[in-house]
């Protein structure tokens, strides 16, 4: 019985080498314009709102640098920061808020000097395609019985939404009790901004406050613009992690994000380029 077990484990170990002695006909191409050596991995922890844009950037980066694989972890920036603090292996952190980046700087995980702002984003009110509650203006957000979904205050998008409601309360057009009425309509505080999008898209919620980039990613959503004097400009920082296993490649990726190609991709997805 023991012999059987040992045999089983040995067989499951290293696979038998190929019996064919022929060398593959095509040799891997020699590194030409890329500065990255073959077979390299890059792990990018990025805010949920960057899902589509960074997905494109990742593919473009892999195409331009043969042998490089970029893996993403998209979640609320606060979740990612905590994961990194708890030792999750990442090479790059792209946050929707300077606060989460600062947490890592204070924790000695990111070098302040290496952090770069790479885009700005503003917020917008989204409505389900069918707009069941007939929300037409921002004031309608205070309509009793409306189901509003926001990001949790720990999530950057939720924090910004809270600031916007605050700004509105200071504006005589909306009144000082505006924020109380809207908060009374909140039925859920989601843990990342894409969950807010999902709930509104499904029609479960009547309205939500998300980034304009999220609205562009789902064109069927109806939107109501938030005026510039009430809106929040979210500046996203990106930085390599000090403990990255691949600092050169990480720097290369960040350079790409800041390049005209990278910024064009971000613009396509509704973000505002930094330059």
């Amino acid at each position, binding site marked *: 019985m023991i012999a059987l077990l040992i045999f089983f484990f040995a067989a499951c170990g290293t696979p038998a080498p190929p019996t064919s002695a022929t060398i593959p006909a095509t040799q891997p191409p020699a590194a030409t314009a890329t500065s990255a050596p073959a077979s390299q991995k890059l792990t990018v922890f990025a805010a949920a709102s960057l899902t589509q844009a960074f997905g494109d950037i990742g593919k473009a980066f892999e195409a331009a640098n043969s042998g490089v694989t970029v893996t993403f972890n998209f979640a609320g920036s*606060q979740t990612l920061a905590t994961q990194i603090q708890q030792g999750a292996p990442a090479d790059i952190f792209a946050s929707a808020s300077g606060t989460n980046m600062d947490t890592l700087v204070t924790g000695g995980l990111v070098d302040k000097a290496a952090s770069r702002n790479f885009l700005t984003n503003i917020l917008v009110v989204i409505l389900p395609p069918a707009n069941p509650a007939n929300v037409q203006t921002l004031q309608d957000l205070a309509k009793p019985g409306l189901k509003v979904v926001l990001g949790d205050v720990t999530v950057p998008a939720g924090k910004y939404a809270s600031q916007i409601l605050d700004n509105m309360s200071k504006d005589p057009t909306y009144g000082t009790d505006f924020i109380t009425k809207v908060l009374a309509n909140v039925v859920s505080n989601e843990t990342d901004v894409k969950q807010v999008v999902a709930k509104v898209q499904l*029609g*479960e919620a009547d309205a939500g406050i998300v980034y304009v980039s999220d609205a562009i990613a789902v064109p069927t959503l109806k939107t109501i613009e938030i005026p510039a004097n009430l809106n929040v400009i979210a500046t996203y920082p990106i930085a390599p992690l000090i403990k990255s296993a691949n600092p050169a490649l990480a720097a290369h990726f960040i350079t790409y994000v800041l390049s005209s190609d990278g910024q064009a991709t971000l613009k396509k997805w509704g973000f505002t380029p930094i330059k």
Partner: protein
Amino acid sequence: MNKPSNRLRQSLVGGNSKWIFVILSGILFALFAVPLAAVVLRSIGPDFFTNALSRQALKALSLSLVTSSITMIISAVFGTPLAYVLAHWKFKYKSWIELILDLPIVLPPSVAGLALLIAFGRNGYFGPALNVLGISLPFTTAAVVIAQTFVAAPLYVRSARIGFSGVDKQLIESAHVEGASQWQLFSEVMIPLTSRILASGAILTWTRALGEFGATILFAGNLVGTTQTMPVAIYVGFEQNLGVALVLSVVLIFVSAIVLTVTKKLEQREY
């Protein structure tokens, strides 16, 4: 005949073979014990009681206990007859029904949450029908109970079905001979004989409901006091304040331990 191979075999399967059990069991046990102990140790600090008695923690704890208890009761009331039917009645397509009942146990909770949303959400297949009755499920405490029941009740049905199947066929026959109806057979023979298995199935259901997160957050959402159960509060608190999350985790561990001990004592008293 003291060849080395014989001696080795002797020590492995002879008197000294207990160490196989100890080592294998010990490794798995350590997997459970070490993280639990780590959480408890890390949480000890001056802020422990301020965090534990905070409004958010108390609301989350009470919501969790209330919803998981309701889930357990619903599972028992509706699940016991279902398990009985599966154990003792013969009918077509029984194996299909059993398959559907086993699916929620193996499916990821997020799939469960999505399925519930598509079925019972405002814009779901049954959404308009429920709307007519004035019911809107997502974002309510009822949704929390439904999400918990979806993932936890199948565990109860499974335990109960095994319990009912295990009842001696001769007892069932003699009950029929005595002229017992289905209900009498069920309530006066089956239930008393299987009460222990049913109780442990109910505990399993309760603990699964208490720990439910994925389906809850998708179907019911996250709002303090209405839908923010302990696991959701811990997840959200994890980012805000590790101290809060640790304390909530420890409270959950201790509450669960107390309830499990109390229920175990009750089980033993029946005999």
